[in-house]
């Protein structure tokens, strides 16, 4: 929407100097040793290295939480906003500056609790940006209170005898809200996370990856059920190849919303991968269309001429 003509953010233009991990590294992370968030940070570096977006055009924004510390550890333009509200902030960066590529990070409390309504509306509006939810099923920064994804029975400082309230189902919420790229991954699975985040970043529209990221301090072993080396199952979603083979009939079509809902309804730990991907006009495109039509009607009049026309009508 800015008046400068600029390339859209989803097709990164190659630059001369390759952007490497060293250039992308900022402050040393302050997370507890063993925190799942380290792996997500490393995957973010790796995806940025793959995308090779001009360094100055990368924006990393976050809300509040352990996970939301991310922007300090990434050497890019960015910021640390207030609890739960990073999405509307980041969406406006994308809408006001279509020449930059916007990533937002946050925790499960940030995204599903205090910011829950913003998540619904960001998804519905399909603003072009990438959102990573670092889900540890607990409030880490504030030291172990129940989160909206904590399982029933989880003993926290606010539920010492075990959580009573049914946890939300992140995939269902995202599908319901109209997000156009919905994926799920696990911080112990580097290759899978990298694939998911890269696909999300290349998606034109509102793309979300929920990553299970263990809080070793306050919810140790929360996701062991999805860690094979700890006796769990990490089952990935095989995507359709449209090769006509009988195996392919069993693979998941990510544009099939009903199938995506079915996957989202599996018992925990469920499956990991792309649940849903669909192209529909982004808010960026729709708003740009409004502007283009309005500008055409004005015959590209200058701001001054437009204003003078308005005041002439007030005489």
């Amino acid at each position, binding site marked *: *929407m*800015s*008046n*400068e003509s600029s390339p859209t953010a989803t097709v990164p233009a190659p630059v001369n100097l390759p952007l490497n991990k060293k*250039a992308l590294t*900022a*402050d040393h992370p302050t997370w507890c040793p063993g925190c799942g968030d380290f792996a997500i940070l490393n995957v973010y570096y790796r995806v940025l290295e793959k995308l090779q977006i001009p*360094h*100055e*055009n*990368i*924006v990393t924004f976050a809300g509040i939480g352990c996970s939301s510390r991310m*922007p*300090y550890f990434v*050497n*890019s*333009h*960015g*910021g*640390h*906003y*207030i609890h739960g*509200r990073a*999405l*509307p*902030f*980041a*969406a*406006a*960066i994308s*809408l*006001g*500056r279509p*020449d*930059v590529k916007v990533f937002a990070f946050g925790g499960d409390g940030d995204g599903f609790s205090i910011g829950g*309504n*913003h998540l*619904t*509306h960001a998804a519905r509006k399909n603003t072009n940006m990438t959102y990573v939810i670092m889900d540890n099923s607990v409030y880490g920064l504030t030291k172990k209170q129940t989160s909206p994804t904590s399982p029933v029975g989880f003993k926290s400082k606010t539920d010492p005898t075990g959580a009573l309230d049914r946890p939300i189902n992140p995939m269902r919420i995202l599908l319901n809200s109209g997000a156009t790229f919905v994926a799920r991954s696990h911080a112990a699975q580097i290759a899978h996370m990298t694939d998911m985040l890269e696909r999300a970043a290349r998606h034109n529209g509102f793309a979300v990856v929920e990553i299970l990221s263990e809080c070793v301090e306050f919810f140790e072993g929360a996701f062991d059920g999805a860690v094979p080396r700890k006796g769990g199952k990490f089952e990935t979603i095989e995507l359709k190849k449209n090769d006509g083979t009988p195996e392919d009939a069993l693979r998941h079509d990510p544009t099939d919303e009903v199938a995506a809902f079915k996957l989202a309804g599996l018992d925990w730990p469920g499956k990991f991968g792309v649940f849903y991907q669909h192209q529909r006009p982004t808010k960026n495109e729709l*708003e740009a269309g*409004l*502007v283009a*039509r*309005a*500008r055409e*009607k*004005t015959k590209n009049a200058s*701001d*001054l001429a*437009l*204003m*003078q026309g*308005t*005041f002439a009508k*007030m*005489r």
Partner: protein
Amino acid sequence: MVSPNSPVTGEASPATPPAPVSHTLLPDVVIRLAGNSQDGIQSIGGFLARLAGRSEQEVMTFMTIPSTISGGPSIFQVRMGSGEILSAGDQADFLVAFYQHSYDAHINSLRAGGVLIYDSDHVTPNPDDKRFTHVGLAITSATIEAAGGTSKDKGKNIFVLGLIARIFDLNLDKLRKLIQERIGGKGDDAARAALMAFDAGYAHPVENLLGHLYRLTQGGPQQQDRPTVTTDGNTALTYGLLAAGVRYGAAYPITPWSSIMEVLRTELTRYGGLFIQAEDEIAAISHALGFAYGGHLAVTGSSGPGLSLKMEALGWAGMAELPLIVINVQRGGPSTGMPTNVEQSDLLQAIYGSHGDNPRVVLSPKNVEDCFYIALEAGRIALEYRTPVIILSDQAIATRIEAFEEPDLAKHMVTVKPDLTPRPADFKPYPFDGISRHAPPGTKMLSGKYPTVTGLEHDELGHPTGSPVLHAKMNAKRREKIKKLAASLPAPELYGDPEGDTLVVGWGCTYGPIREAVMRLRSGDAPMKLAHLHLRHLSPLPPGLAETFRRYRHIAVAEINDEGIYGYGQLAMLLRAACANPAIRSICKTDGLTYKIGEIIAGIKKISAGS
């Protein structure tokens, strides 16, 4: 004005211009139209206001709209005249009552000796009330007859406009042209029907009932270079924002703020910008801050309750140091309160709301014209000092119509573009020795180090810090920039005696009534030594107030809010704290209406008598 003793009912007669009759000259006149909102009361008021604007006459209006969806009782009061019109008038000279309830509710707003014009199809006035000239006309049936059956009584308002045109010998050509312009858009038939109703009203020989007609004295030659425009405060504010360079914004609807966002949503697309309707006020200010971070000048706005929701994010904006314009069109509170009434009770929320030490800028327009200029000033301050600037307008200024000189647009228009020039290697996002100027995304950093904008306490480079020393230093940095702005502010407008008995201080929509009250008390048989000081800058306050205050025995601060637990209105409390002057006293009220001149006069007299 003559005051016949008994009500008379006129009869419709063919269209004839008034036969030569005597015209009583009036310097100004207050007409109150009382009916239901669906009768188009507002539009006759609008026509009259615009006509006055085009006739080199001053004009001020006042209106109420019902807060219910389906319409309901509504009034529009217009005061027109040749002198300086500062308020909508305490009492009406003419009352037009469309219904019995209009008559019942408003007859006492008519001054003794005034003229009551009523629709005899609906209203039966008290025959024993001899205070007024009663003029009964079958307005409803005459309109139906004139406009021809199908449209029912739609057009009553235009019929009355014709009647008023005859009574005041208004310029017919200009009025007919206005009707064409305003109603022509709805189709030729609509315009034709309206003109028929207008002619029928104009043809009524109302002078037979009144005994004579009136004419407003002509104003002197105009002392202005540009034409007069006529509009309401919300519109003036909207275009002030556009002129200030605002191209991006977001908000959530709430009365009486909504009309600004409705216009911006469409207007901004014409200017290549964007306005988002957000899911709530928190998202709205977050969007606006995202635009600001992107390098744009952005706006968000609301009314009282919505401003409360924005408070946490406002605190972030102060800490992170981003420019932003926030509009609050005040209404009666707390909570949903009196959503379509005026109040000035959000001052302290605007200055001190949010958490932590968070100095910010709060401005308030004194009238409709000033809405345009205050928006320009807000934009300039926000960009120069990298701070949120709150504009406190109010329901009265937002909805009333005034005529004023068209702004010199070529001179005032500002262009704001993200500054993407590469930043030098020694760039610091939060320097101690200067105002923070962020590098928007897309800016190359020659140091190779990219900045983080943050709400955590930080060092000069934006790194989080828990250092008590740095927190104190950064608090001082944020405070000092606002003090620097304070030192640069012009002295506030002072009218009247440079020293004396009482200085009346006001802000926002109290401007007109205070000025008229002070003018009246300074003239007459026993003139008082008074002055009026009006504050447009409420935070920070302009320099020199304490010295100015010392030149008067009493300082009377008039505002539309409650006297509070300690007996002082919100501005009075602030001024007492800032100036430590015990002579500062309050004139307060919370009846949901703008001040009447008489109310201010009574308040001044009480305070100057030392009671």
